């Protein structure tokens, strides 16, 4: 399925772009992470420490085990620092 992958803050800097469209059959966020990390050294660097990475699926916060069926947009970013 086609999927928009978005990157924010220092993950965006490591990957080198704010968003990309990919084709994936990943069933969960965790499977998607593995696919992305295998793409190149920049994606691998962005996803090296998953404890420091947060995920949103279709603009809702999600866990690594969240299913991706039907998802259109997955975003990766560091812990939020708003307020």
């Amino acid at each position: 399925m086609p999927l928009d992958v978005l990157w924010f803050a220092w993950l965006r800097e490591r990957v080198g772009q704010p968003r990309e469209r990919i084709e994936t059959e990943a069933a969960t966020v965790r499977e998607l992470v593995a696919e992305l990390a295998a793409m190149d050294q920049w994606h691998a660097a962005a996803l090296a420490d998953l404890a420091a990475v947060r995920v949103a699926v279709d603009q809702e916060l999600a866990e690594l085990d969240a299913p991706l069926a039907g998802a259109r947009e997955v975003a990766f970013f560091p812990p939020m620092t708003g307020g």
Partner: protein
Amino acid sequence: MAARVQAEPFDIAAELAGFGAGAGAVVTFSGLVRDEGGRLLALEIEHYPGMTEKALQAYGEEAARRFDLADWRILHRHGRLAVGEPIMMVATAARHRGAAFAAAEYLMDWLKSRAPFWKREIGPDGAGAWVEARDEDEKSLARWQG
């Protein structure tokens, strides 16, 4: 009953005009860019357009239900903010002060740790380090759960 995200500065005073009329108790929180003893020239705030607005609206509605608010408002900026400028504000209106205070703290705890904003500190040399999340903020949020 509104959340707003914008790059432009805002005037806390103007935002409060007419807010909470008839409610009895109004609490506001506003966050300003600190200069950190000269170490900081500005903040740069990145956000997730689309998700941000939805998250703020959802947190506001949840607070309104939980604390029976008469009114609430959330306003958060993104982009480059100079020292001393307002970053964000929340306002809550309720019948009694306990609920208004609790709701404002609740909203702040959600905003700090669950709203998709990321701050970068811009120093006098232009270099910028991303602000790290504080354990304390995560603990502060945990007190509302369960």
